[in-house]
């Protein structure tokens, strides 16, 4: 039995992961902004699986509050064995090009705020010499494209940060997993045009759980996105720049 903290617990993949963990009798700490929604999820998981689920208000952009938030989580659970960072903000690419506030929100939510909480979490796990950090980045961070490079650049930054963090924490036995999901059938993608090979969140959650068991470093999910991205990354820049992607 483990205690797992999920940041951004109301997102589609996070929810599916919560049920996946609860099915294995892990206790959960759900963190996010929509407290009412998290309470509903917590109640449901408790009734289904009998595990302990607590709810913690968390605002990614409230950097000053992150330390207290983490202490509070630790006090509630006694110990934390793993953390999933699942929140993100897709934003509106066009708006972000014209309104700096939107660009800032995309970058801060996806990158800066992650650095803030992960720094705290990394120190905790490093001193404990145990634990896992499972962070949802994105295939959008693998190559900048005109349709979503604001989001992509923040996620790309996040992936690089995680690479460094993994390097730092490897001697402490702390596992850092970077997950790059392709298209997943969540609220973000439902009814969106141009979606293909859309995976179910439950399927993705199962795969992520397995990667945690196997201590994988970087993983695409579903797996075939590795090959899709391999192709996309291999297109020479002088050609790529002219494509309308």
């Amino acid at each position, binding site marked *: 039995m483990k205690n797992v903290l999920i940041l951004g617990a109301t997102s589609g993949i996070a929810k599916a992961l919560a049920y996946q963990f609860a099915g294995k009798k892990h206790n959960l700490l759900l963190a996010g902004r*929509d407290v009412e*929604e998290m309470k*509903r*999820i917590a109640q*449901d998981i408790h*009734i289904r699986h009998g595990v302990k689920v607590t709810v913690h208000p968390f605002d990614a952009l409230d950097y000053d509050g992150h330390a207290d938030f983490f202490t509070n989580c630790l006090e509630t659970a006694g110990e934390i064995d793993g953390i999933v960072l699942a929140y993100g903000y897709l934003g509106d690419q066009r708006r972000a090009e014209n309104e700096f506030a939107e660009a800032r929100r995309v970058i801060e939510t996806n990158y800066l705020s992650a650095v803030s909480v992960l720094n705290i979490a990394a120190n905790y796990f490093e001193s404990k010499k145990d634990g896992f950090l499972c962070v949802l980045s994105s295939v959008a961070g693998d190559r900048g494209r005109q349709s979503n490079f604001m989001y992509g650049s923040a996620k790309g930054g996040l992936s690089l940060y995680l690479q460094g963090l993994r390097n730092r924490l490897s001697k402490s036995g702390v596992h850092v997993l970077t997950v790059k999901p392709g298209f997943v059938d969540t*609220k973000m993608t*439902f*009814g969106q045009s141009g979606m293909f090979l859309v995976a179910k969140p439950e399927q993705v959650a199962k795969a992520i759980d397995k990667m945690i068991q196997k201590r994988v470093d970087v993983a695409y999910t579903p797996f075939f996105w590795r090959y899709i991205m391999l192709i996309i990354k291999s297109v020479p820049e002088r050609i790529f720049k002219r494509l309308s992607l």
Partner: protein
Amino acid sequence: MIKHKESLIAGWGNYPAEVCNVYRPDRVRDITELIASGAQPHYISRGLGRSYGDTALNHGSGVLLHTEFARFVHFDEQTGILECEAGVSFEEIIEHFLPRGWFLPVTPGTKFVTVGGAIANDVHGKNHHVDGTFSQHVLDFKLLLASGEIVHCSREEQSDLFYATIGGVGLTGVILTARFRLIPVESAYLEVDYLKAKNLDHAFELFAQTNEKYQYSVAWIDCLSKGDNLGRSVLMLGNHAPASKVKTGGDPLRIKNKPKFNVPFNFPSFVLNRWSIRAFNFAYYNIHQNEKSKIVDYDSFFYPLDSVHNWNRAYGKKGFVQYQAVFPPETSRQGLTEMLKRLSQSGRSSFLAVLKSSGEQNGGLLSFPFKGYTLALDIPLHDDGLFPFLRELDELVAAHGGRIYLAKDSEASPATFANMYPDLAKFQAVKAAVDPNNVFSSSQARRLGIVEESR
């Protein structure tokens, strides 16, 4: 605001299929914002789409999926009262509560239905003669109205809305959560007796003799038999088995997971033709012998079809029509005899036909069952000649004081429907009070004139 997907969808009979604008809200405010925006002229809720016809369709308009509203809210271990969101399926309720000794108070012949769908069609099961419909075990529910207001409905509070919503096919609003009673059971098994009936009269006789003794009863009926054999059938009569009778060795509240089959694509329509159906019916009747006290797991007893996923595809691309009618006791014999005769005369055969005695009517304004006998059958849709035939059946049913079930209907006319449901005007009055602009409407509701075409 949330996005929609324009999709071609259908009910379980695969007929009719219509292009609808499908939404998948995951917060209540998604729905209220959507309705307030006026993005679509109408909306209708959809559970797991197990109604056969156009009950959960909205041609060119909005369909609200309940997939994201599928959470348990509260369970009281003392009383067995469960509160959950309307998108929770019966399958999930069984999965989580049967191992703790609780079962559904009423269940239809498939566990792939939602609580919302079960209330909105006021579904009945094999125990209707003793336990009534599902709604009769519902204490209360929360209903989101067209105005955006959320009201609490029970037999005491907002009782008009309560009785309009049970069986109200989604037209009063969106059921968000409901509270209902589960029943305590000692095992996941039933003790079943099988009795063969030579003909319809014999079946009636056996139902009358056994109704008191068994909580569950149903007859599979061979609708191709004629003359003296007309209506020959196999009655299946069951009660929940006490733990002491279950000799599986393991936990009596659990059954082994059985393999699931899948029908991967639509079969060509000749697969289920008159000859194969005749052969099946013949074999089914002759394989069964009178048998006593057989211990059968709940899945095989209640949900024989659920073990084959997408079995509806066996009817081919054109789909099929499910027809269910109930007759009052006085006319049951005559009505059913006439119905079976017309079916076999027209060469329209049914693979699965189910006869059941039904209990008293409840207060649901559009609720289907009343005291008497009900017959349900599915008919492959090979040609358009089926529709005039079904209209004839409707008239026959109406002439005998019977009625048809909205969950199965895809062809009835407004006049026949109004004829069969005397409380329709009352229903419309309640609806007009809470939804004067018909924000909630479905293809079926417009076809049957339950709501007006447009205002």
